[in-house]
């Protein structure tokens, strides 16, 4: 399995007033193609910081991070915007759909940003929302909104799919269906990173990275991940 993301000696330190906070201590990590990586850990362990660095929302304080051969820590703001646009699909805990656009238009919004997107309607059908395409977010349930968010992330056919607590605002049944969609995406070759503090979700990962106080305390490869639809919490 070839590495899509390579982090070498990557660390992140914030300044909060007079205090220096080491959010991530220097770490080396690689993420492979078609792999579901679940990052778990307690609050403040550095999960979201790791996700933000991979997603180009933030820059490391030290070290490098290379995605598909491009050292993204060297990119300027415009370069990072282009990186996010072309290579990364984001899925948020609270969906972050654009309220004034329908489900289909939310997907088209992103499709319009990239050169060779997938067909938005087909992608929406693939997540099971073909019949809800013309509904606005306020008219959709939480699970449906999150599926729109996944379709929005997938339509650009990204290398990376980054999900921050994707089931955090959903009930169990809806949550596992969302996780199943992420598994399907990985099967189509996407590198999927899921950040969660729900240890039950970790069972679906091909790889489980545990963080504590900004350090990787374990990096475990799972031979037979659990089918997401079988997970309960």
């Amino acid at each position: 399995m070839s590495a899509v993301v390579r982090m070498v000696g990557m660390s992140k330190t914030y300044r909060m007033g007079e205090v220096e906070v080491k959010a991530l201590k220097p770490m080396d990590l690689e993420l492979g193609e078609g792999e579901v990586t679940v990052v778990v850990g307690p609050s403040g362990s550095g999960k979201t910081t790791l996700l933000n660095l991979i997603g180009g929302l933030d820059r490391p304080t030290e070290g490098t991070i290379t995605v598909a051969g491009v050292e993204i820590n060297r990119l300027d703001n415009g370069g990072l915007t282009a990186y996010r646009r072309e290579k990364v699909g984001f899925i948020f805990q609270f969906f972050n759909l654009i309220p004034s656009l329908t489900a289909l238009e939310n997907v088209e919004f992103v499709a319009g940003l990239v050169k060779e997107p997938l067909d938005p309607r087909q992608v929406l059908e693939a997540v099971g929302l073909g019949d809800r395409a013309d509904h606005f977010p306020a008219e959709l349930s939480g699970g449906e909104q999150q599926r729109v968010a996944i379709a929005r992330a997938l339509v650009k056919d990204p290398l990376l799919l980054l999900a921050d607590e994707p089931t955090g605002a959903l009930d169990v049944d809806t949550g596992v269906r969302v996780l199943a969609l992420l598994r399907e995406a990985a099967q189509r070759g996407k590198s999927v990173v899921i950040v969660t503090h729900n240890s039950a979700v970790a069972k679906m990962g091909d790889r489980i990275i545990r963080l504590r106080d900004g350090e990787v305390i374990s990096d475990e490869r799972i031979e037979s991940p659990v089918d997401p639809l079988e997970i309960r919490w």
Partner: protein
Amino acid sequence: MLWLKLRREIIRSPWQFTAAVLIMVLGIVMFSASYMSYLNLNESYQYSYEVLHFADYWISLPGLFPRDAVTDALEAEGVERGEARLVLSLPAEVMSSTRPKAYLLGVDLSVIEEYLPRREEGPVRREPKRLELRILSVPDRGRPEVNDLLVVRGEYASSPDEIMLEYRVADYHELEVGDEVTLFAPDGRERAFKIAAVVRSPEFIWVARSRQDIFPSPDTFGVAFVPESGLAEFLFAGGEMPVNELVFTVSDPAAGEAVLDALPKGATLTERAHQVSHEVLQLDLDGYRQLAIFFPALFLGVGAMVLYVLQARTVHAQRWVIGTMRAMGYSRGAIMVHYLAYALLAGLLGSAIGAITGLLVSRWITELYVAIIGIPLVRTVPQYGVLAAAMAFGLITGALGGIIPARAAASLLPAEAMRESPAAAGKRPWLERVFPPLARLRALAKVGYRDLFRNPRRSLYSVLGVAVATSLILVSSVLLDSVDWAMRHQFEDIERYDVMASFYPGAPPEVLDELADEEGVRAVQGVVEVPVELHFAEEVYTTALRGLEPGEHLYDLRPAGIDDADLEATAGSSGLRGIVLAASLGQRFGVSQGDIVEVESLLDHSVRRFEVLGFAEVPLGALVFGERDAVARSFDLPELYTTVFLTVDGDRERLIKDLESRPGVVSVLDQANLRDTVRQLLRMAYAFIGVMLLLGGLLALAVVFTTTMVSILERERELATMRILGTPSRAVAWMVSLQGLVLGAVGLFLGAVLGQVLASVALGMWGSDLFDFQVVTYPRTYVVTGLGMLGILLLSGMPALRRLAGLNLAEVAKRRED
């Protein structure tokens, strides 16, 4: 602890708080400064009237009467003080300074002399100047019982060969005590009087020649007071001086009619409210008082709206905090006070700064006004009431702006407040259903325009913010445009002559022919003017009937809506068939076309009845018009012209001198000079309006800044998400700016309408038969206002856009929906 929270929130967003306070300061400064000056001015007028025993009534007698024949009438019950006197206009000659004059339309501009052409230094050169003097007799025995004079320089006149000049005419011609004034009697005799004093009179705080000429130039018109013995010697061969006017004060208003009843038929009574100087000043003062409430109310209304927008946004954003505070045990009252405190604090701070600043500014305004108008005696009043009112208005505005959000905060249930708010609603806007191609736009464009409809409250605030800001800027500009247009319309379109010569009793047609042949004279027009009284159902109005020759256009009614055919139509076979009224008279007395009006000549008191054939839109001078020969025939007048208009392309100065030396010429007015000065005054008015624009602009900036900031802050997560998804920040900035501009355009349109309405209300406060201003807006005003608002919109959006560019995208995207 809640106070600490409030303090920190203010410190965290200092610009937001500053903008709110600034709006309050502007409103309170405007209110306190203008209202305090209004009170000072009103007090000064009343004080001057009281000390100088300003009359309650004037009775004009139908001719000259021996004093003893009329003074018994003043014994009527309820009369306090009374005087019988002689009032007449005489040609006069003075040795006038040749330096440029700091006067315009009877107003002393020397207080703003630095804006006027610089006067030459060195000795004053003088030359003879002919003018009309309104002469009022004063008793030999001592000071007048009524309408006493305030001596500014010199000593009160005590000998028959002395004269006292009203200060404007004295200052204009730079005449001093000891200089001479030559008066010319109707029979051609002349006599030199020595200036004993320069005085101010409560009757002539505003010097008007008549109701139709409230802006006479001191160049050609002035007021003077001569002891009775002097007038008796000069005009009545040393016999007893007859009188033609009674003035008196009363303790009972019914005494006015009682005195009138005891006088010969034909005497007319004028009460104080309709005395020209008093009425002009009262109109001015009333308008000033109304504006002193109108503009600040507008500003404070905007202040309340801004505070509401800010606090509504804060309460919405702090739902969780409010829920937590309630869960911890804070009472609803405590929550309400806490969220009301921000608005009240802004109101309190704004009113404190505004009231103190207003107090200082009011002193300056009062001084300037007193100097320009020339109020004889000044008395200022304690301003505690206004200061208290200013503080109260600040607090009330704060409370009005803050109460609804504070109540909303207090009524939130803890569990509900801490629950995630439902997803922001989105739906297909009506515009898209009406205009389906909009649905085919690119997604970013769709977000752009749908956002305008998604949250109507937010869009409404933005539109209202721009509308109010635009109207504030526009209203001052429209006022200026209207005055500018009225002045130009009057002095350039209607009064197209360069020189006006008044003759007494009149100039025969040969004089007009001679004048037309004079070198440098381009055109001549002679008109006939008859002093008349118009009798309406309940009221009597004194004015003049002006006879104009169709086809002669130095005094041109065509721009006022009356063409030659209309003028010709006033002539019948034996005289006037009908008349044209100044439009302001029609409005004031509710007269319509086709109505019959009774016209009494004040020359022989003969009465005629004429049909009203039309109305002339003349801004100044509520006259009556008719065809010249018909006017003369109707009133059995000889073929004489009372006024001659001339246009000149040669040596105007020489022509004016020549005219002044002609027999029968009462005064010569250099209209071209007046026109230049009007332009100059308007330029200065632009400077004054500039200050108003600056205030309006500041307010606009604060309002638009607040509404834009709130509009962007409320959508921060949505905009951050777009950026995370890969939308370039420039595209997001464009979208937000375009949204602002679209809402701004709607606001601009509404503001333009609102500005017109407000200007119309403001002009209406001044409107009377004395001034008739239409609401006029020059295209350039729209262009400048539009561009100014565009600049303000872009400028006020910049801090929010900068904030957007510097957002921590990851942090904002994780927030719950606002």
